[in-house]
């Protein structure tokens, strides 16, 4: 059956081509792996005209490079490619957490950039990359009047890409996330846990991610803590990190109460959209995670 297509599709091959297309057609929607766009109920057939720019052929977005300090991946690399290339760079705990995100057929389709740039959903990958202090290279394109387009790019920590409600801050057509840099931290400890499913549309999804280095005096150093509530919030607060650093492990029940109190006071204020069940789950997952830290220290 032949359709009169209401869709135009462009497939640029270089970043320069992509930039000029974005300037020419600012209303276009970017397609990375397509898993998010294609799962929208109104995806096909379209009732009105629509313009897409597919990023799958842009060579620069597929590059991978290693140094002893970090692994750098183009944003069009899939989660499965990340796992294949980073098996020696990532710590085993981080590797396992990423491999548990979803099943392989989906991991081979979901791109890192697509996952990080969803406008309103903070998936597991976002919280894992935020916790391991990954950085993203965001390219900004500005056009003023008839002047030539101005392009500048900036590396920024992944957690700074989102507001506390979990919304992606750079979702307008003039920004493109091009690369991700994951620091190599073989000595760090990483804890990840979650409740609820992303694919089955859970409104009560919560994931907790903690990364830290264990000092010799039972004090954890350089911790990062991240809670993701899918569509309802994204919590990555430096204040909680310093709060955790100040605690001496293994934690006593008094310390755990302090953590619960801190979170129950701060979370509803920082992420007002989270449900009461998500708050309860976040508290329990965090306390479980601190219990795991306790056990790690006692095993040392």
């Amino acid at each position: 059956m032949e359709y009169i297509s209401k869709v135009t599709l462009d497939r640029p091959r270089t970043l320069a081509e992509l930039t000029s297309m974005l300037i020419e057609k600012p209303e276009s929607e970017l397609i990375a792996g397509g898993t998010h766009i294609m799962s929208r109920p109104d995806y096909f057939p379209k009732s009105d005209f629509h313009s897409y720019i597919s990023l799958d052929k842009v060579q620069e977005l597929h590059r991978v490079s290693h140094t002893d300090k970090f692994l750098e991946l183009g944003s069009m690399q899939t989660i499965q490619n990340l796992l294949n290339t980073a098996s020696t760079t990532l710590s085993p705990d981080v590797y396992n957490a990423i491999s548990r995100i979803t099943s392989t057929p989906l991991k081979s389709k979901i791109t890192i950039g697509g996952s990080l740039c969803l406008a309103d959903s903070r998936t597991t990958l976002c919280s894992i990359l935020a916790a391991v202090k990954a950085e993203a290279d965001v390219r900004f394109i500005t056009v003023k009047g008839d002047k030539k387009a101005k392009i500048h790019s900036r590396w920024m920590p992944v957690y700074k890409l989102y507001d506390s409600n979990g919304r992606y801050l750079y979702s307008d057509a003039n920004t493109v996330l091009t690369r991700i840099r994951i620091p190599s931290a073989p000595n760090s400890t990483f804890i990840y846990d979650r409740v609820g499913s992303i694919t089955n549309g859970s409104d009560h999804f919560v994931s907790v991610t903690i990364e830290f280095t264990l000092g010799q005096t039972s004090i954890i150093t350089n911790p990062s803590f991240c809670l993701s509530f899918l569509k309802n919030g994204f919590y990555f607060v430096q204040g909680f990190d310093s709060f955790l650093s100040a605690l001496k492990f293994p934690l006593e029940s008094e310390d755990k109460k302090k953590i619960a109190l801190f979170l129950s006071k701060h979370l509803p204020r920082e992420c007002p959209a989270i449900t009461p069940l998500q708050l309860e789950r976040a508290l329990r997952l965090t306390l479980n995670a601190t219990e795991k830290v306790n056990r790690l220290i006692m095993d040392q």
Partner: protein
Amino acid sequence: MKIQCVIDGEEKVLSESPDKPLHKILSEQVPSFSVNNNCLGSSCGNCLVIVNGAYTLACLTPAFKLDGANIQTYESFSKTRLARDIFRAYTEVGSHPCSQCYASKTLLIASIVLMVEKADELAGILQAGRNLYQRKSVLDENFVKQEMRIHKCVCMEISHIEKIVALVCEYRQRSNGIYK
């Protein structure tokens, strides 16, 4: 847009909208392809197909990515040796998928078998007689459960699927991998 591809060994030239999902194309091109798969990516898992050797959900594959692709549905997969090994394991374990998901779950089990074999090869422990549980050094104990999460239908127990995967690996190891 014009798309040249191979579907179940047959060369096709299609004229499709670039955003059209593969499962819609297949339901027009392959008479036996299940049309019970309009979940739009929320993991019903019923539209699993093999595109260029990779197991993928047809509802999440747009037409513009199919130019030059080799697409294999259950129709042609069911004639392979791997499929016959899986059918034999169904009988031996006494458990098989329901009629709604038979095709897609068989394909998913095939993909798990191939992943287990790859993991074994990587770890250099390709030895006959090893069961799935002895492979824990290579694969996470929840590996099968996690891979099955892509499929919503719960007509089979995970423990049965684990046994089927282990049996199929065993059959294939006995044949020295010549049926790959």
